[in-house]
């Protein structure tokens, strides 16, 4: 007996093995929750795109009316913001929510806490509600490959993670900003948190203020420019790329470094300890 015959028997012929997406495509869409229900646990951009309305304004309505709960719905929300931005001629201005600009290819998104929400529904915790004081949206501009993301205010953790292209501008960022970045650029006008540019293999990052610990950890390529100080373990185990610090780097900068360049006005203790390659330079020596 063939395996599909065995499975057919096991499920009493109730499972057709037909793609769920094909079944759901073409049905009338009732709203964001309806769209979310039709998608699987880990929706992909192509699946969301296939089910989302073709018209840009309808996508914007869907975005503004949504109140995503949980990672799955937030992912769908993020993909929808990217799709809306790509199809709109003018920038999409929305309040900051997790995953906004996910996998965006072109267009511009402006995340503004004071942006008016024009959706038909105002649900508690929804897009129309102002975020609580101090709460920042995470995963903004993740996996972007083009376009611009402008954040009026601070960004949370994982800003621009796995970014491949495009640009992001924000006032400050949390931890793990621009992690595993392979292309594009990011500008932080204030301070950045810990683990900036971890595992990067491309792209450019500029931070006007200070950066936290372990910036450029395992970095293979790309550039990081910091205007003020960097905390401990700068460029930890980095294998390539360059890091430039405007003022002073903290202890153990370039620890176990294998390649690349670190340049700063001064260093804390144990800079370059156990280094096997690369260069650590003091600006006055240049």
């Amino acid at each position, binding site marked *: 007996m063939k395996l599909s015959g065995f*499975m057919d028997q096991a*499920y009493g012929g109730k*499972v057709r093995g037909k793609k769920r997406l094909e079944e759901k495509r073409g049905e009338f869409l009732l709203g964001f929750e309806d769209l979310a229900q039709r998608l699987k646990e*880990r929706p992909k951009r192509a699946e969301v795109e296939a089910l989302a309305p073709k018209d840009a304004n309808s996508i914007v309505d869907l975005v503004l009316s949504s109140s995503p709960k949980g990672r799955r719905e937030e992912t769908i929300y993020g993909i929808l913001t990217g799709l809306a931005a790509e199809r709109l001629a003018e920038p999409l201005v929305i309040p900051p929510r997790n995953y906004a600009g996910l996998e965006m290819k072109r267009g511009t998104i402006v995340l503004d806490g004071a942006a008016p929400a024009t959706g038909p529904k105002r649900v508690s915790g929804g897009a129309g509600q102002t975020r609580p004081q101090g709460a920042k949206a995470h995963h903004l501009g993740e996996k972007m490959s083009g376009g611009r993301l402008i954040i009026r205010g601070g960004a949370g953790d994982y800003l621009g993670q796995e970014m491949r292209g495009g640009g992001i501008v924000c006032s400050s960022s949390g931890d793990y900003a621009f992690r595993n970045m392979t292309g594009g650029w990011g500008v932080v006008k204030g301070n950045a948190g810990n683990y900036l540019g971890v595992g990067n293999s491309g792209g450019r990052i500029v931070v006007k203020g200070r950066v936290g610990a372990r910036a450029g950890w395992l970095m293979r390529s790309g550039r990081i420019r910091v205007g003020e100080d960097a905390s401990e373990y700068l460029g930890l185990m980095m294998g390539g790329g360059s890091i430039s610090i405007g003022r002073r780097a903290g202890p153990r900068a370039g620890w176990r470094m294998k390649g690349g360049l670190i340049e700063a006005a001064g260093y804390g203790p144990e800079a370059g300890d156990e280094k096997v390659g690369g260069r650590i330079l003091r600006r006055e020596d240049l």
Partner: protein
Amino acid sequence: MPDPLRKIDDLVSALEELRLHVGPADLQVGERKVNGQLYIPLANACLRNRAALLYGGMGANKTTLVNLLGSAFLGLSFDEVENRMVTGHPEQTEEKIVGFIDPRQWSSSPAPSHRSSKSSISSLSSSSFSSFDEEVEAIEVLWTPWARSRWKVINEINRFPSGKQNLFLELLQKRKVSYAGETLDLGDTCYFATMNPDFSATYPLDEALLDRISISVPATQPDFLASLALAEREKEVYELAESLPRLSSKEFDSLPGMVAAVSLDSRVELSIISLLRDFTLCERAPAFDKTQLSGGSKPSRGLCAGCHYFNNPEVCCWQVDEGLSDRVRQDLRSYTRALSLLLGLGGSGELIEVLRAVAPYVIWHRLSPNRTMLERPPYYRAGRLQYIKDLVEKSINRTLNERGEMNMIFARAVDGEISPREAIEELSGYDDPIARLDYARALERMV
């Protein structure tokens, strides 16, 4: 035409009426509830070369029940069955368990000189070895009644020290017993063991031995109502045992064939395979490096840190330290069949209920649950069987209710109806450990 099933039903009724076994109906099989402590040993009696362990405190009717069943199934008196039993204690010897060399064989002819010292054995030429082998084969061993019996009861197995437990491991593994170079083929045998970990001089059971124990059932001490019923018992057990119905040798021999005739449907087969995979996905070591398969590589010691499925309560693999061996698959199939036969269940939807009932008892003694999870309510560190029951329930429900589509995609790819690449693409949307760790890898090999 023998009808052992009718006699087994009579035996169950007689055990209750004679107050020889009064237990709660704690094993739910579909709509029906039966006493697990009775029905699981009964199922074991219908099978051959499977071992059932009764686990509980003093006075829980473990040993007596097994001997009563032995008396009924072998058609022997209760005393005869009891005499064949071996009981564990630290000083128990191999000679008392399996047999000893018959000294009478040397009284008629003198012993060959090379038997008396090792040095003389090492000095033998290769031609002499064959004659030596012949001489060794001639040694006569007096096998104990226990070794020769087809109903082997190992009482208080946990009181055997680890070295002596290896004897049972070898016995369950090879179905043979050896002593002084002589081997006794045990043939088709029913194995039972009892265990009371409350006793002093208790030794932990080796994991390999536990894996060869096919099923384990907790034996409970009589509750208030059961005690009232037992108070009505006026005669001694061995006297009452004479009144039990007895199976003929032909009926006893026909049971394995009847069990084998019960066919399991695809739902049960699929649920069993998925259950095993749910518990065993990583074989407790990364697929690329089995050298890490050591005592230190266990989920409780950080093996699963960083895994996507770690701490997901719906996923079973990280919640237990050990994986499940293929013996579990065979045991699940055998006991599902045997219990279905005993309860007269075999219809559509009934077999899966039997599997749900049996599977926790086949699995729970082989696994060490995650301590953190086990210490939480509603288990409070004591509900180990219940914890495994809940995991089994999750796995079977997931297979039957949620895995249909992904199983179908995988099956179509294996059958060549869709390309492996297309199937991998489709399966990537399923956040299921079997899809990720089994199906995707199998399809990648097909690309």
